[in-house]
């Protein structure tokens, strides 16, 4: 665990600047929210009334505290920390937890990683304290009260925690003060007490925190994103900014991740590429694949059109790639484009390109649905799912169906039908009169009563479909809604055109 304690308010640490404090309004009283080192030396402390502070230090420089801006800055810093580990948890108001297990070897060890972390943070001018320990609690305690940059050896945090004050346990201020008032000034003394009376006296929270710090109880951190083992990163000696360079490193980092995936016979369907800018901003891109894959060139092609829209600023220094929705692809060859004749998946690159460009809803393959209602008979299916199972009902090629089906049937006027059940002999659609030369029908399509409530079923939903041909050869699919009733005129609709 690493703990970067960002004292966002103790900012300006130049050569003997004037004492400085941030002020907030708590319950109608102006109080100090945070104080600088110089102010602390003058015995000012957070929570002090602003008037008292001014009485003690007349030349105190103050500014308004901005908790929201601090929180936003902390979140941004958390995004920046993803370069060190994909698992970053916020510890508001001024701390971050990084899960560095299995990551440190990328830097050659925890000490080197901490040194790199320190160098980069120092370059940004942020004051901070760091510690690495087995548990978040121990790391927090060492970062806040131990020596800066402590690295606790595995299972060795108890000795390092022993001399720290009770406040290092992340307790409420009152509880910590009460423990100290009773003469327990070191954690070692607290840990030596019998557990049951300790819990009764200071609350179960104290015991929990003690156990968490010593690794006897587990602690769940809310990481900003779930840690994934499918993670690759690439750092550059010099920052890059040209779009073609960015596209190239996308392929390079994809090649690293894909090698990992290939070693385990896995493929992934979602990839997130993050460019880390020099100024700490993170630009991320997402692509999805229709079939789990691990071809770096294909990924590069999908990322390439999106890279142009990114602003690299002063340059990109690190690029990371994470894979999501990882699944086994043992039987599939990696290069899908290799042989389209023998492999139906040759279409996957095209489907991916189009789905990423237009959106997945704009790309489909018609799937047969077992329904008599024309508007329900064809559904949109995923383009690359295998066809319906053998024996599944498809559309019958024998029943004439139009090539164009209107989403909503269009009303037809001026229908002349000789006897009620006959096809129309003339109708008017879109302002044009069509004389019917030949007709077929009716084909009665009734409501699917087994799907709805039996009381809602009505003969008014019955449709009698006719296939008619007009004098010019135009073929149309008309229907009459409802059963024939002598007292009211029949309503005709045009549902499709055969061509």
């Amino acid at each position: 665990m690493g703990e970067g304690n960002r004292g966002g308010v103790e900012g300006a640490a130049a050569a003997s600047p004037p004492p400085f404090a941030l002020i907030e309004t708590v319950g109608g009283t102006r109080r100090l929210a945070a104080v600088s080192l110089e102010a602390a030396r003058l015995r000012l402390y957070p929570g002090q009334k602003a008037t008292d502070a001014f009485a003690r230090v007349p030349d105190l420089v103050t500014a308004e505290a901005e908790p929201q801006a601090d929180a936003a800055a902390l979140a941004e810093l958390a995004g920046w920390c993803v370069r060190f580990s994909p698992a970053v948890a916020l510890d508001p108001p001024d701390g971050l937890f990084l899960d560095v297990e299995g990551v440190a070897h990328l830097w050659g060890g925890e000490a080197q990683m901490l040194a790199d972390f320190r160098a980069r943070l120092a370059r940004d001018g942020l004051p901070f304290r760091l510690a690495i320990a087995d548990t978040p609690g121990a790391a927090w305690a060492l970062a806040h009260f131990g020596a800066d940059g402590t690295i606790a050896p595995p299972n060795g945090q108890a000795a390092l925690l022993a001399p720290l004050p009770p406040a290092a346990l992340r307790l409420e201020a009152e509880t910590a003060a009460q423990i100290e008032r009773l003469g327990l000034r070191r954690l070692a003394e607290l840990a030596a007490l019998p557990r049951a009376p300790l819990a009764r006296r200071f609350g179960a929270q104290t015991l929990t925190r003690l156990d968490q710090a010593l690794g006897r109880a587990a602690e769940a951190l809310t990481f900003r994103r779930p840690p994934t083992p499918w993670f690759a990163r690439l750092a550059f000696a010099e920052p890059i900014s040209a779009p073609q360079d960015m596209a190239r490193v996308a392929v390079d980092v994809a090649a690293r991740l894909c090698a990992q995936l290939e070693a385990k016979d896995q493929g992934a369907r979602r990839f997130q590429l993050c460019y880390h800018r020099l100024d700490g901003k993170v630009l991320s891109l997402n692509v999805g694949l229709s079939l789990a894959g691990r071809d770096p060139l294909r990924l590069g092609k999908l990322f390439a059109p999106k890279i142009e829209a990114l602003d690299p600023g002063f340059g990109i220094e690190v690029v990371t790639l994470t894979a999501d929705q990882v699944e086994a692809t043992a039987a599939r060859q990696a290069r899908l484009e290799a042989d389209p004749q023998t492999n139906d998946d040759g279409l996957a690159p095209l489907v991916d390109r189009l789905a990423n460009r237009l959106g997945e809803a704009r790309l489909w393959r018609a799937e047969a649905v077992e329904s008599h209602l024309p508007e329900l008979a064809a559904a949109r299916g995923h383009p690359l799912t295998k066809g319906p199972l053998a024996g599944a009902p498809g559309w019958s090629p024998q029943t004439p169906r139009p090539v164009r089906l209107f989403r909503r049937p269009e009303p037809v006027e001026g229908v002349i039908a000789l006897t009620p059940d006959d096809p129309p002999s003339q109708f008017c659609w879109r302002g044009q009169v069509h004389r019917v030369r030949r007709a077929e029908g009716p084909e009665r399509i009734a409501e699917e009563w087994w799907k709805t409530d039996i009381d809602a079923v009505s003969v008014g939903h019955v449709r009698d479909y006719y296939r008619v041909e007009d004098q010019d050869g135009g073929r149309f699919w008309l229907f009459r809604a409802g059963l024939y009733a002598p007292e009211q005129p029949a309503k005709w609709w045009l549902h499709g055109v055969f061509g």
Partner: protein
Amino acid sequence: MSDPRRLAAVRAKVSALETGGRPDCGRLGLGAPAVDAALGGGLPLGRWHEIGGEGMEAETSAAPAAFTALLAAPLARRGWAVWVLRRDDLWAPGLEGLGFPPERLIQVCARDEAEALGVMEDALSAAGVAAVVGEVEAVGLTAGRRLQLACEKRGATGFVIRRRPFGGPSLPKGAPREAPGSAAATRWRVASAPSEPPAGEFGLGAPRFAVALERCRGGRPGAWLFEAKSAFSQSGETWNGTHPLRLVADLGDRQLAPAPSVRRVA
């Protein structure tokens, strides 16, 4: 005087000029010698073809779509087919009835004209795609050229159905009705024609189309009456390898389709 070898060489040179030095990706016979001869040996593959309708059909575009599906059905059995739409009203059961395999068709709904052309281009140059149908209003010179280059990449065949968007303006004022010097290999005009059921039967016969080949590179124009003999009568599996279109009659110099009679609503 007339050396046959020299003649053959000149012929080859001329045909190379006619095709613009493009690779020959083969031709698709339509099953009728007269039509194939007019096309110069069949429908050229690895090119793109323009298909349009008249009158109301410029908007509903049912006959051009049905004709295109029939034309491209043998291609769709060789590889994948992609149909780029502007408006989602293509209905797969209808394609099935015409003998076009909808399970090998991927439909794409584009937001605008430029996107439709871009998707067509992308699909034409993709591996495994044999035919791409796109419904667009007009193909400009540059867009046509780009389509042609995409076709040549892998020998896929493109079909552009010229279709006016519903409710939209017909064409901007001053815009030419036909794109000048279009890069299309052929241009067809398709209209439905009255069907003839077999003697003694009621109802409609097999769908017929009055088709005019208005323009053809390396061929000559013509007008024919086609019939989709096997439409709505065969099951999808039994396809015997012949083209689904049948020639009914040579329209010759006859007026192809009666001029769209402007009638008022009575």
